[in-house]
């Protein structure tokens, strides 16, 4: 009876933990031939628990303040203009099938918009008045994700996603201008993948789950 109770209790705990007791860290190392992209996004697609009520896109000195932001299905996007000049943010991303125009925004203005497009899409954002401005918004579902800032001074190519449940194995890697990568990597596995642009090699990423 006691043994049965113990097994039942253990099973309940395991179920409740959603596998968290069996989680590990995914480690990655990027290497690039030539100039790396500014940013990379890595995430495990199976998880759908990501919640981000607000995500902000802002501009100062004719630049976006962040190059990549992440949102989820419950995210309200806030387009702020902290600059001292007008901007007009828009998205016209045919690959992601997302098109919207925030409109002319005076300094100090804030415009809100829900992230009402499909999950697991990264869209390119620009300004109609300042075409050199560019940033990206990623709508994903997974809290097991990381934004890697590749242009940080002294960056050594290393990044990680911690506490990844064992059942999450489908990894997606996105970098602006480069071919997206999707791979399966389970606990205890290693993989080395090529990074390409229009099928031409641009670098590699070594993945280790421990």
């Amino acid at each position, binding site marked *: 009876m006691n043994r049965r109770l113990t097994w039942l209790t253990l099973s309940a705990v395991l179920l409740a933990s959603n596998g968290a007791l069996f989680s590990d860290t995914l480690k990655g190392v990027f290497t690039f031939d030539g100039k790396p992209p500014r940013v990379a996004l890595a995430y495990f697609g199976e998880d759908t628990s990501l919640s981000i009520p607000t995500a902000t896109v802002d501009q100062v000195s004719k630049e976006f303040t962040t190059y990549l932001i992440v949102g989820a299905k419950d995210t309200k996007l806030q387009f702020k203009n902290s600059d001292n000049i007008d901007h007009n943010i828009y998205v016209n991303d045919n690959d992601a099938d997302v098109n919207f125009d925030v409109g002319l925004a005076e300094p100090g203005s804030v415009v809100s918009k829900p992230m009402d497009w499909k999950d697991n899409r990264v869209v390119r954002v620009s300004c109609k*008045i300042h*075409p*050199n401005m560019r940033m990206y918004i990623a709508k994903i579902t997974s809290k097991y994700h990381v934004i890697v800032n590749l242009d940080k001074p002294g960056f050594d190519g290393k990044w990680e996603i911690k506490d990844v449940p064992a059942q999450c194995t489908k990894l997606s890697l996105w970098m602006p201008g480069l071919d997206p990568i999707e791979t399966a990597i389970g606990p205890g596995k290693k993989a080395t993948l090529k990074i390409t642009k229009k099928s031409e090699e641009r670098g590699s990423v070594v993945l280790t789950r421990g």
Partner: protein
Amino acid sequence: MKRKLISVFFLLITGILSAGPIGLLSKDDIEYPTGKPPSRDEVELGKILFFDTRLSGNKTQSCATCHDPNLGWGYGMAKGLGSEGNTLTRNSPHVFNLAWMTSFFWDGRSDSLEKQILLAIKNPATMNLPPDEMMKRVSASPYYEKQFKKTYKDGVTADNLSKALAAFQRTLIVDNTPFDQYMKGNKNAMSPDAVRGMNLFTGKANCANCHDGGNFTDGSYHNLGMGDKDIGRGKVDTNMSYRFRTPTLRNVSLTAPYMHDGSLATLEDVVRFYNAGGRVPTRDIKKLGLTEQEIQDLVSFLGALTQWIPFERPVVPD
């Protein structure tokens, strides 16, 4: 550790080598369509096409007619002439430093250099050559047939033609002017007038509000109060009427006359135009209150953005 030290070194250098909103150019910032610089073959092919009059309807004009290397890769006249002898509505822009630009034409209606090229060739007002005829003429040349096959897997196509022309134009780079040499530490590279002019450029004269960055352009669209009827960017976006794209000022001393309508003959005229607050009131331009010496200093600084690019015209095949 070594990589960290190198990164810190480059960060310091970048910080030192900017004069506030203006600074040096970096070829690392060029976004080539394929992610890497074009091949020598592609550039050479594009160079020959650039000088080839078979790319105009009546075979009288090439790209180099309106973008003449001897006229600062511009036209030297207030407004260009189309291949049928018609006067165009705007000044022919030069083609320096297009490698860093993200929009093309005065109204920015093209978001890629490749698209701009095909539009200019097809436009009845400019080169007036329909795409089918363009392909027929280029394919009929054994030289082009061979060179296109050597450079591109799919040979002679309109896309490849535009890629070759764009590849060549992206090599026209001005990044080693007296200003650049001054910024790299040669304090003798610019005259005292030009140094004062540089400080005015980023200060009292407000030039760097629009002519900023290493390429001296924010790539944006502004209404300068020219007072003419051309609505510029308004044809693309009704919220942006009378705005025109900010050109780079590198090699500006070679590309007279100035503005989208070519109405300002000299750099002195340009500086006096801004000093007066434009011809008609506009939010973007205010009177500057510059003295005569300050006007001269600014003109001197603009001259320090000059780098002559030696060039030999290619032989165009029959």
